[in-house]
């Protein structure tokens, strides 16, 4: 745990329990975790230990659990679907192992996908700003000139960089990454880890990354180890 008080924390989860509907073993058994603002936390553990389940709950994608989660000081259970969706759209970014890019859209349009669900008044100036930022993000991530390419035309590393650009477009405060290097070769995975490290250092973005890759875990400021649905240990680096 960090020494921050819950009010300064980005994520506060306590006593999280989740069992799968088919009556199998529990995915989470009383997990509590606090992530401070600007912290980079790696959640590591063997496959099936509940890492991805924890991440889905922290991101408000999974609401069927026991326990409590507060994001940015707001209790997740107290939020309506619309409020939660707005929170995900504006303050949380997701990066997935399988990239989840939309095959029918160009890299540029994939990066701009979050703007589809932007709430509130979106005028032409804001739209233009988002388009400009999408281009800048692609440039920063080494994809300058590839904005018109479709996912099928990109390598695995390029696809993940597009996914990272998409996650960063709305300037989120919390980035949740689920095995972001899991589908990449070692060299490409190292590049992606470098991107996360740089993002964290330059923007002080709060990152929670679920991984079983030591290289990504070593980039974090704190490593939380899970086993069989429980937090086993924590190491501050």
């Amino acid at each position, binding site marked *: 745990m960090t020494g921050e008080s819950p009010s300064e924390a980005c994520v506060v989860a306590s006593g999280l329990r989740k069992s799968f509907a088919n009556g199998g073993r529990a995915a989470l058994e009383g997990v509590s975790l606090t992530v401070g603002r600007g912290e980079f936390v790696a959640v590591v553990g063997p496959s099936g230990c509940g890492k*991805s*389940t924890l991440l*889905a*709950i922290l*991101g408000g*994608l*999974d609401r069927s659990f026991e326990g409590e989660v507060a994001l940015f000081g707001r209790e997740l259970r107290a939020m309506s*679907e*619309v409020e939660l*969706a*707005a929170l*995900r*759209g*504006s303050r949380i970014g*997701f990066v*997935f*192992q*399988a990239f*989840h890019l*939309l095959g*029918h*859209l160009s890299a540029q349009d994939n990066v701009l*996908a*979050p703007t*589809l*669900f*932007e*709430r509130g008044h*979106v005028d032409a100036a804001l739209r233009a700003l988002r388009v400009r930022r999408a281009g800048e993000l692609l440039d920063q991530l080494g994809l300058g000139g590839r904005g018109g390419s479709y996912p099928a035309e990109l390598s695995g590393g390029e696809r993940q960089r597009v996914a990272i650009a*998409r996650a960063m477009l709305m300037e989120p405060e919390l980035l949740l990454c*689920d095995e972001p290097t899991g*589908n990449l070769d070692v060299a490409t995975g190292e590049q992606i880890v470098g991107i996360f490290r740089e993002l964290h250092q330059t923007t002080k973005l709060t990152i929670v990354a679920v991984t079983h890759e030591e290289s990504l875990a070593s980039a974090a400021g704190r490593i939380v180890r899970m086993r069989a649905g429980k937090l086993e240990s924590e190491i501050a680096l």
Partner: protein
Amino acid sequence: MSAATLATLVRRDLVRARGALVTSGFGIAAGTAALVFFLALGLGVRAVLLGEVFPIDQLELEPPKTEDPGIIGGLLGLGSEPPGIDDAAVQKLRASPDVEGVYPKLRFSFPATARGGKELFGKEVGTSEMIADGVDPALVNGDLKGSHAFVDPLQFPGKKCILTTECAAPQYCEGPADGDGVCVEPVPVLVSRYLIELFDKTIAPAHHLPPVGETMIKHAQGITFKLWIGESLLGRSRIGKPRHIHARVVGVSKRAIDIGITLPLETVRRLNREYSGEAAARKYSSVLVKVRDKENTSRVIALGQSLGLTPKDTRARDVSVLLSGVMALLALVAGIILLVSASNIAYTFRVLVSDRQREIALYRALGATPGDMVGWMLALALTVGVAGGAVGVIVARLLALGTDSLAAKRLPDFPFKPDTFFAFDLSLLAGGLAFAALFALLGAFGPARRAGKIDPAAALAAI
């Protein structure tokens, strides 16, 4: 989710899933085309039948036929007084809120024959019996094309006379056969289009006479003929002396008696008085009731029955019921096509949602609500429905044009043959589109709900 986002998503879907969506839209288009085509056909045929052949916005009420001695009964002296309809009954009908107007009619209660038509046929033609009735001029004023007024000519009497030769043509000497008269214009007469059609299609060919339809309709006024009143092949009236009156056709009217001629009410009233007595002049033979709303016709019939009156002609109602039944049957067929289309849409959208579970889950992660996803699918279905409906409406219109063209070329001429068998109005077209949209939404509703219920965490975890 904003309308712009919805439009963007739908536009992208129309490109990437065009094959499946076009197939779904085709079913909707076919169903809508069938629905609009059949309804337009039914409405068109109904408009001709009920507007021209059997007008349903008017109702003719008369005393029970069994009580009416008729002309023969009158000639034989049967019955003390014809039943008729008195002014009190007319006033009660007028007072009903369902009634727009009441127009009494008075039939000739004496025998008559007619002879004339030389201007039209080149030779005199005649009838052995002439049926005629008198109507309130207010009922038919709109049907007059020429300058002749539809009033009893005695309202504008000329100089006194004994013989017609003393009057300037076309005036004739009107008055009792053995007494002084006055020079007046010929009695204005209206004929029905039904009579003209009947003459043209059956009588004229049988007697090698030219058809009068077009001439009569375009130049209805001016044709003159003579009526011999007080006597016919059936016999002679008990009072009054037979004599000639001159008549002139002044128009064609759907308010005119089907087979016979229609005169001003006052003309018939005084002739009835002269040849049948006061009772025949005082009581009306029937009343034409204009109904304010066709839907309330049955209430007017019930009111008439309470006054001892029955509808003279139930063909309009029979035709209306028959047409409604046929239209309902055809609409049912179209509805079944639309239902099949809806199930096709349901299948297409079920596959679409199933294929896009991860995309939907990603959108949820990027800030979409379950409702946004439901809205997306419904908007897509609505677009398919409206587009399919629009194509269906256009196809129905084209089919109707083709059918009309074929009918004009291939069908033989028949009475009341219309230029078009279809009635397309804005509400029908809008209704067709609305049904198409409704059935598309109906089909997509289940899959759209499923889209809203997709568990984003589970869908995104699947690699």
